[in-house]
């Protein structure tokens, strides 16, 4: 719990514009002041996880059924990236998609896979 509180405080300071070396030296001083120096490693790991999560938020994961498809859908990927202000692109191969693509950020998903279309047709045909 204490670790998370320290982590959140330092993360807040850095994202508000404080220089990283300053924030970390201040953290060390504060931890020493309150007798929490042993938590330093844990706080830094927590901080790292927070920045990694931020990084994830800026990444669009492109799932395609074969690697070369990623280039085929470059235009769609660019549109999605622009719309949600994403920066990084990670390509994953998922053979179950059959064809098409899925673009995914932490909060949005665009599913243009053949698997989805075929499953929808199957459900529409069998439900009636």
């Amino acid at each position, binding site marked *: 719990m204490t670790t998370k509180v320290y982590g959140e405080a330092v993360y807040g300071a850095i994202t508000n514009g404080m220089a990283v070396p300053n924030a970390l030296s201040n953290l060390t001083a504060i931890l020493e002041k309150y007798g929490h120096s042993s938590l330093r490693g844990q706080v830094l790991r927590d901080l790292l996880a927070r920045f990694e999560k931020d990084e994830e938020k800026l990444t669009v994961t492109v799932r395609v059924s074969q690697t070369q498809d990623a280039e085929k859908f470059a235009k769609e990927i660019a549109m*999605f990236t622009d719309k949600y202000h994403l920066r990084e692109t990670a390509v994953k191969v998922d053979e179950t998609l059959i064809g098409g693509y899925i673009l995914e950020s*932490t*909060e949005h998903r*665009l599913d243009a896979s053949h*698997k989805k279309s*075929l499953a929808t*047709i*199957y*459900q529409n045909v069998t439900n009636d």
Partner: protein
Amino acid sequence: MSNPIIERIRKEIESLDTSLHAEEIGRVVSVGDGVAEIEGLAKAQMSEMIVFDETENASLEDTMKKTAPLFGLVLNLEENLVKIVVLGDTNRMREGMVARRTGKLLNIPVGDAIIGRVVNPLGEAIDGKGAIKTDRSMPIERIAYGVMDRSAVNTPIHTGIKAIDAMIPIGRGQRELIIGDRATGKTTIAIDTILNQRFEPEATRPICIYVAVGQKESKTARIVGELEEAGAMAYTIVVSTSAADPSALQFLAPFAGAAIGEYFMEKGKDALIIYDDLSKHAVAYRQMSLLLRRPPGREAYPGDIFYLHSRLLERAAKLNEKLGGGSLTALPIIETQEGDVSAYIPTNVISITDGQIFLETDLFNKGIRPALNVGISVSRVGSSAQTKAMKKVAGKIRLELAQFRELEAFMQFASDLDDNTKKQIESGRKYTELLKQKQHQPMPFYKQVISLYGANNGLLDGAKVEEVKKIEGEFLDFVERDRAQIMPSIRDTRTLSDEVDEMLKSAISDFKAARPEFYTA
């Protein structure tokens, strides 16, 4: 030559909507005891339906097998997380699973096709009779109609139980609580009320909704069987959640029932809803709230338990003519422990409803069934909805029974009592006997009127208490057979005209003359 299956698939392919929309998603962080924590879903709303995506990394074959989607309901919005109750089997969930917003508040598909069916709180058929085709959906949670949308309760809903229809009348749009210990006949009263609606003309017959909350499935199956056997499923819908269902589904069941009832009410029809029972509903809500880490209050129930039941029961209403004049009558059931009506949930629901029907174990064990304590049972608005015929005969019975209750304590000293007191006690015993009714044998109101009229006008004078039920049955047969115009007149006019009054008086004297063997006391 065209194959219809291929043709069908071709049409589906041609009409497939291929437009793309970005979905708002989150990922499951943890799952436990029916509650899932989701990261993401920043724009999720309270009571919004969420769909869990079980098809990620699944093959097309496996995806096609997953016909029933797994839903969740947003109940807690927190700073970094959304807490969702899972409306299904949590074993289907795993960490990291995608949860997708639907943008819809929880609603239930409704339509006339739902009549006669057994459904779960999500509106899915569970009676094995196939999917229900509906054209509308109603929100499960909604604000009840306001004052200006309503009109006064003015039409009776007959339960078919003499003691209730005579002394605790219920009106269409009223909320009347049925309260009592376990095995005192609470459900029986509710089921009898449903069965009795078959005597109503089809045009004014209420659509009945029986909501089983956390009941044994065997009990619900028995009830459905009884309703089917009596032909009552033709106007009844059963919303069922068993004790084995997740607490979230049990919590939703009464609201789903209310949504179905509102659909019919808004069409200008009358509907009757039975919540069996709200004690189990409160327990399910307590479980859910504790799992959502909401602060517990008295008896560990959450602070909004009163609001939960008040907002549910407030949805019972009699709409004004402008809105079609439909109604939704609610008969909630509460189970007490050792007759303790001062416990938390019973007092809450007593204060919300427009009256109570108290059932007592002692009366039940004495053979007085329905085990109704008429002394403390009340109906606050129903009397204005009582038919004139019933009003005319019910006044005396109430007085007789009140006097009988006062004298009941002296019954063991019977030999020392004066003649007048003895007579009053005897009369009270006969009325008590007359009000006894076997289960699933509701009596249409016109027969009740004749039976009570007879008791008020000397039909039982000179008869033994043990013969009362026999005399009642024979007298009703006699009137139906030999005075054929009486019953249709009361049924159609709902009044007791002077002419019918005279006919009944002569029927009583003729019956007594024809059957002297009953009058030997």
